């Protein structure tokens, strides 16, 4: 074939993904620029002096492209072969944080390397994605067996637990995204249903008085038993299943939720959750977790309120580039990292938001399509891993800026300012592109 005679790195590369990537990074650079820019700045000079956020982001972008180039030049077998080694490397990096970390903005997850803040938890997603794909593509992995299920969960939860220990609950939650991969690869659907039910139960616990909730659950259980006994074949298991479910639910309500909110989560995180649903924090006095207080001790929902004001004030068509008062005068904290979406919402309004969301949806669906066209299970699992992680980041980040999710500090892929996050997202994407370019091969 023509390709064989003239082998280039562009062979088989999915250019759509690359274009979407470049477009999103450009939007990100522009947004960071509009946050940092002050009237009268010499734009060209400040872009090149590498002191402002946007010029730093430009360097990170260049670095990402360089890494991407290397990845595209690598043989795709390299990733299957070294997946487990990378995973081990990632865990090691995470562990290295404990002796060498620096305190930055209330997290213990950052290692300072010169002027660059390395956040291994962010980087680790790439490695987990590879390792999980590697494990799932093994011939003897069978998701109907409990041992396989436990192993896969272990691969995901190990780095997640270490991340929680570094007071980065937000980043740890991202690892939950990998369950989508497992679901695709045959994890019984019951887990998804149970997981969803648990989530509903926890939210209900926060919203409703727990005695009332228990009474409601008891009523539902009794009704289920009554009707089950009456209208189906009389089986003893039915009663046992219902009773067990009831016990588990009550345990979650009475024990698990208070435990998580007093012993696991930090005070400010609990506050964020309760400010989201607009209630007083009932565990305020019993929280024993020693963590970092938020840097500026403003009222808990200050960030979200300002963020909503910023996005809401954009209206339908936006206030125009560099015209937004909310973002330009620092009313929204963390606005070039976690709350970057405000800049788009304020400057370009509902239409701008729709456009950005459209690009993201297109990107995600493209990834799913790419995943489905792989012959190799490894490539498919990896592609789903990437798509899930991206989806989790995008959805949670935007939801927290518009007040639909509690504020957990996770960045918006390719748009938020931040070296580690841009580089790790780029790496994930380029590995995907590399694997996809060799989609005819079957990798093990």
């Amino acid at each position: 074939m023509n390709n064989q005679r003239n082998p280039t790195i562009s062979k088989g590369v999915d250019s759509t993904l690359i274009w979407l990537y470049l477009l999103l990074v450009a939007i990100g650079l522009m947004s960071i620029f509009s946050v940092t820019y002050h009237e009268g700045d010499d734009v060209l000079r400040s872009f090149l002096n590498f002191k402002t956020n946007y010029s730093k982001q430009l360097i990170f972008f260049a670095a990402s492209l360089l890494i991407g180039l290397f990845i595209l030049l690598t043989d795709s077998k390299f990733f299957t072969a070294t997946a487990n080694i990378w995973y081990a490397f990632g865990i090691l990096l995470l562990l290295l944080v404990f002796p060498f970390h620096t305190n930055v903005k209330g997290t213990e997850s950052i290692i300072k390397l010169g002027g660059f803040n390395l956040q291994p938890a962010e980087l680790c997603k790439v490695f987990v994605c590879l390792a999980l794909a590697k494990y799932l593509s093994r011939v003897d992995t069978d998701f109907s067996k409990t041992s396989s299920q436990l192993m896969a969960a272990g691969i995901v939860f190990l780095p997640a637990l270490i991340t929680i220990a570094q007071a980065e609950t937000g980043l740890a939650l991202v690892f939950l995204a990998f369950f989508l991969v497992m679901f695709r690869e045959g994890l019984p659907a019951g887990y998804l249903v149970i997981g969803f039910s648990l989530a509903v139960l926890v939210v209900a616990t926060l919203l409703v008085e727990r005695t009332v909730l228990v009474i409601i659950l008891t009523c539902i259980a009794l009704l289920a038993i009554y009707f089950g006994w009456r209208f189906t074949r009389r089986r003893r298991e039915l009663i046992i299943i219902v009773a067990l479910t009831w016990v588990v639910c009550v345990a979650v309500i009475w024990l698990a939720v208070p435990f998580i909110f007093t012993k696991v989560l930090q005070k400010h995180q609990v506050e964020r959750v309760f400010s989201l649903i607009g209630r007083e924090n009932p565990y305020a006095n019993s929280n024993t977790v020693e963590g970092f207080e938020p840097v500026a001790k403003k009222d808990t929902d200050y960030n979200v309120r300002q963020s909503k004001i910023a996005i809401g004030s954009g209206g339908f068509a936006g206030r125009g580039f560099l015209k937004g008062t909310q973002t330009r005068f620092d009313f929204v904290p963390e606005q070039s990292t976690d709350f970057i979406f405000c800049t788009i919402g304020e400057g370009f309004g509902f239409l701008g938001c729709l456009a950005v969301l459209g690009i993201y949806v297109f990107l995600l669906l493209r990834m799913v399509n790419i995943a489905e066209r792989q012959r190799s299970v490894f490539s498919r699992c990896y592609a789903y891993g990437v798509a899930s992680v991206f989806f989790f980041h995008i959805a949670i980040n935007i939801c927290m800026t518009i007040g639909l999710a509690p504020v957990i500090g996770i960045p918006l892929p390719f748009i938020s300012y931040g070296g580690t996050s841009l580089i790790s997202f780029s790496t994930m994407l380029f590995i995907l592109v590399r694997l996809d370019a060799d989609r005819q091969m079957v990798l093990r």
Partner: protein
Amino acid sequence: MSVFNQSRSNIIRLIFLGLFLIIIVQLFNLQVIQGKYKQLAMNNAVFAKVKYPDRGIIYDRKNRPILNNTIMYDLVVVPNEARKTDTFGLCEILGIDTAEYKKRIIEARLKNGPYRPSIFEDLLEPQLQARLDENIYKFPGFALVERPVRVYPFNAAAHIMGYIGEADSNIIKRSNGFYHMGDYVGRNGLEAYYEKVLMGQRGVEFLLKDNKNRLVGNYEKGRYDTSAIRGRNLHTYIDIELQQLAEKLIAGKLGAVVALDPKTGGILAMASGPNYDPNSLTGPNKQKNYGRMVLDVRAPLLNRAIQGFYPPGSTYKPLGALIALDEGVITPANGIGCTGAYYGCNRVVRCTEHWQGHSANLRLSIAWSCNSFFSDVFRKTIDNPAYHSSRAGLVKWTEYMHRFGLGHRIGVDLPSEIGANVPDTTQYDKEYRRSWNSCTMVTIGIGQDKLTITPLQMANSMAIIANKGYYYIPHFVKNFENETEKDTVLRKYRQKHEVLTHIPKDVYDIVQQGMQDVVDHGTARVAQIPGINICAKTGTAENKTVLDGKVIQLKDNSMFVCFAPREDPKICVAVVVQNAGYGATWAAPIGSLMVEKYLTDSLRSERVAEVKRISEANIIPDYFERLQFKTDSVRAYKWFELTKDSNYIRKYLPRHHSVKKGNQVPAPVVVKPAKDQMINQNLYAKRSTTDKRHP
């Protein structure tokens, strides 16, 4: 294996799309449906800075500014930026302690929040301002802010000008949101009456601020800004030198002086005693001074020229004569034989003159102010056979009085004028159960009984006599800058009121002749000015007050009205000096000095001594001291009851010593300032003694 779960890819796609749909719905809700966020963002980032216009200036008739604008400085603090300030240094300069400092910072925080400036100390003294200005770099978070303030170069016309103050919640509510917190509005006097003319128009500057409330520039390059429009200047009839003379003469007395131009109704001077320096209500001590004056029982803030009501005494007699002549119940040649009293009714009305012939005709009776004659004239007016009943006669008389501008507010351009009282049939019906006759009210004929009028009304009634029947409503403001069709406020002052022009000119001539005789050889000979024919009437009105449950007969009110020159009246003056004695001793010289000052623009050298004698005299009745003590004690006791803080009482008790002999005051209570209870008992002891003495 891969083939088996292919359908699940669609579930994953659905999950993706579902969540994005939720996000889009929420975005649509925030950005398109809820409109409030735009306003919230504006509130966050845009600061509407109000630019206050300069208030208009008030000029006198020769274009000298009676009041003017100047700049004073407030010390302003932004609590959050003041953390590193040199607290001790600042406290030392301001002369406060650190506890007070903390208290004020907390107040500022509560008032405007930690990031907005609040006033720490207002209206700094010039030296203090200079010292702070030098050292302000040591006090981050503090700043000196300009504030326009009124000054009064002539230290005069306090009662006329009024004062300005911050708009209170009542004013803001009544103005339908026109005024805001912190705005200055005229609170009294011309400042209040001509508020709309003087205030000008506020401007607004929209500024951008950042999250720390620091101002960072203009919003939209100032496209929505409006500039402030200066208030319009007033030009008045006031002659500031005449005003100063009037205030000098009435100082240290209770009373009022009003001088007006009968041709235009323009008020040339209006003074009320005791008076105060208008500058004392603008400077750094304005709160203190205001508080002191409000608590003073002599009421220096009261403008007695429009708010004091007095029985007119003999100054009513020219009016009585005019009414009787117009009704035809007397002729100018009629007289009665008075021998020192009027015996026509069951009671005796005394007359100050005894000699035969002082009441031989109208002219003489006015000149010598014969009580018997005017009692008789009044009874004839009421019992006028033309009306068949004294009820109808009184109705007719009341109508005349109203035409003279008495018994109702005359409509001067000052707020809170009172109407005083012209008694009518209803009032007598109520008091005498409908059984009264002309003898019941015979002393109205000599300006007593229930008849009261204000000094301004007195002056205006003279203007009607001087003008032979017409008047303009007395007012201060001649015109103001850029007056347009829409400014209706001055319209009523330019309207001629021909109330009594139906009385023939020669009738006025007769009365005027009598009034001229008063000065030429009658009761007010002290008022003579060579070369000027003055028409005048003195008055001496009885009055009494109730103190400690006992009626005290006070010295008579000394009154004087006049106009001059008779041929071409240019000035009318009314003078009241409370509790001073005969009209001729105090009020007449004051009136005459006013006329001389106005008509000849100066005073003869021999009159300077008289100015000195009058201005230095202190004719405030003794009982005021007792009244002040009583009022203060009652107030102190109320405060004590409210706060249980004995300091309020202690502050007033030692004032026993200053009370003069002759007053019914119990012996000073010796107070041991030891226990609160003790003081409480003493207070009760004092009160019971008082009660015993005056049951």
